[in-house]
């Protein structure tokens, strides 16, 4: 009989969980994750966490608690070296778990020496490890591609729900894809599948940019499924947190990409001359990009009290008045009402539509590039 594999839990980071699951296979562990937080998990996290910690921390802590209850042996958590609270999450989560008598050990995903501790512990052979990394990267890029098609199609679909169905089918196939060849096949099938959805051909939907904190942008439970709500209201969204692009920043490669730190810094320079931390610089730079790129509006999404994101809000407001870009500020915590979010987004979309009919008509022949 095959020996039972030990399990490794990691943060529910939206659909990227599929790709991250692929990356740990070479460590000879079974991945344990979800694509979104559940209400029960969040409740666990809220009960255990300090009250003014951010929603991302609570959700993630709850996730690890749930994993520990199910007897998962290991966890992995990013520990950044930045100024944000994220730096201490692993340490604190480990403390909270130990205080509750759980055995789950959380590895930090960061460098302290040559190898990250996780790699040092499991010590995979270089061959399969590299193969896994390549496969995970391919899956991340595939997830990005699928989502981009979904954002585009959802705003135009004739029958509500078609896009989400196709999106889920594609993600399911991607999850099952084991080899690079399979991943490529799934990737090639994406445009074909989305093209089959019946759409309003001549529609010019509103274009809304989603900026802000990465976890809330990507965890559809935490952001109350903002992408689908806006898509259902006939607005095409663009979520500016793309892990495919972010990976280049993490590993410090690709200075000239559209989303590289260097480009963002140059873009944000008139308004923000410091990195701040987290994705604050990205938010400012992407707001400017949206204003220049002819977006109808942006939604700034972050957990309540998020240190980096909240600290740049006055700057976003200034950009909004200077560049005539409507900005909706949405903070999320465990008390955020789902209906409240829907109402705010509906009102925002109504205002943007009214701006189109009343204001200048340049939106009819604009070209949006991101």
């Amino acid at each position, binding site marked *: 009989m095959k020996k039972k594999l030990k399990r490794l839990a990691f943060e529910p980071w939206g659909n990227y969980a599929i790709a991250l699951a692929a990356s740990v296979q070479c460590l000879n562990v079974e991945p344990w994750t979800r694509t979104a937080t559940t209400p029960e998990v969040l409740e666990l996290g809220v009960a255990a966490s300090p009250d003014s910690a951010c929603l991302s921390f609570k959700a993630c802590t709850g996730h690890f608690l749930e994993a520990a209850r199910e007897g998962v042996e290991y966890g992995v958590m990013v520990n950044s070296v930045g100024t944000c609270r994220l730096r201490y999450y692993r*340490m604190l989560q480990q403390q909270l778990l130990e205080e509750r008598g759980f055995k789950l050990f959380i590895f930090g995903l960061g460098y302290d020496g040559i190898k990250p501790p996780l790699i040092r512990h499991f010590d995979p052979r270089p061959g399969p490890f590299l193969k896994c990394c390549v496969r995970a990267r391919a899956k991340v890029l595939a997830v990005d591609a699928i989502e981009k098609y979904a954002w585009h199609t959802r705003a135009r679909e004739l029958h509500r729900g078609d896009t989400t169905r196709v999106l889920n089918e594609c993600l399911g196939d991607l999850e099952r894809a084991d080899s690079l060849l399979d991943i490529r096949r799934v990737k090639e099938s994406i445009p074909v599948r989305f093209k089959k959805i019946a759409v309003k051909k001549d529609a010019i939907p509103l274009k809304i940019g989603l900026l802000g904190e990465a976890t809330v942008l990507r965890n559809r439970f935490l952001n109350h499924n903002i992408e689908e709500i806006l898509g259902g209201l006939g607005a095409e969204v663009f979520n500016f947190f793309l892990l495919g692009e972010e990976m280049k920043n993490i590993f410090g490669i690709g200075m000239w990409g559209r989303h590289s730190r260097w480009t963002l810094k140059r873009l944000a320079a008139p308004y923000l001359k410091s990195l701040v931390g987290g994705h604050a610089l990205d938010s400012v730079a992407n707001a400017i990009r949206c204003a220049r790129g002819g977006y109808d509006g942006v939604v700034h999404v972050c957990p309540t009290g998020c240190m*980096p994101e909240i600290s740049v809000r006055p700057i976003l407001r200034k950009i909004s008045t200077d560049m005539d870009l409507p900005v909706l500020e949405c903070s999320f915590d465990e008390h955020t009402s789902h209906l409240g979010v829907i109402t705010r987004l509906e009102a925002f979309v109504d205002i943007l539509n009214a701006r189109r009919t009343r204001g200048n008509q340049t939106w009819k022949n604009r070209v949006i590039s991101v």
Partner: protein
Amino acid sequence: MSGSKRTDYRSVAMPRALWYHLYPGMWEVFFRSLGLSVVVSAKTDRATVERAALISEPEHCLPLKLHDAHLHGVVGAADVVFIPRVLSTLTEHIACPKLGSLPDCAVAQFGDETPILTIDIDENKRSVHRSMLELGSELGFRRNATRAAAAAALSAMKTERNGLKTCIDREDDYFLILAHPYILHDAYVSAPVFGKLDAMNVKWLFPDYGCESIESGPIKWDACGIMHDALLRLDAGRCVGVIHLSAFNCGCDSIVMEVFRGLLWEKNIPYMTLVIDEHEGRAGLDTRLEAFVDSIGWRNTLDNAV
């Protein structure tokens, strides 16, 4: 703002909040020694708190809200408003991320009404002394004049700090107060607590925020790192309790409070957190302080009885 223009500034204004308290008394003396007249906003009062609630970002922490209100009060009072970009006040440590965007936020909020003067303060790259020298040369002052001003400023800060109670070894049976310098030195926020403690005849001290360097620990935020360091060296025989004075929505404190709680649990020292917000309910504060001090008193008598 071009380089030659800057020498025209005759007066500098600054808000008496947040970064101002990180280097107590230093900036005023620096600018005054350079021959500029200095306007510092009035001390925090009820009106400041009310203005903060009106004009500041609602999700900011209390000190940052107060900073916005103080800033609003000094805009237009001088030729230029000074707001440094504090990235680190202690080597191998970093400042709260919210301080990094302050000058940019000030430009966004008040840039149309006043020029903003800024300088990076990053102890990891250069000492605050050198930052002052650079600021002086940016303002167009001669090297000697800036050097004298910076020296005067540093010694003024030292005198100011020596006047404060800090962690000294001689005291026995004291309470350690943990708080960010900008809470500690803002009398409106902290005085009710200190007043109550004094009224109960309790001895209290706080960590030495003026220390040059500390051993590198797990907490990388500068003030929180100093607090953590002080707790590590705390003697349970001498310190009877720790009171953590925090501002509502302080991101740093939300994390370090849990760390401190774990640490003090192991050391068997009672720990209480008091969160202060912009609402005026002092009775709750008094009750909690009384209860904490009383229960520590009972703890000693009970221990002796056993």
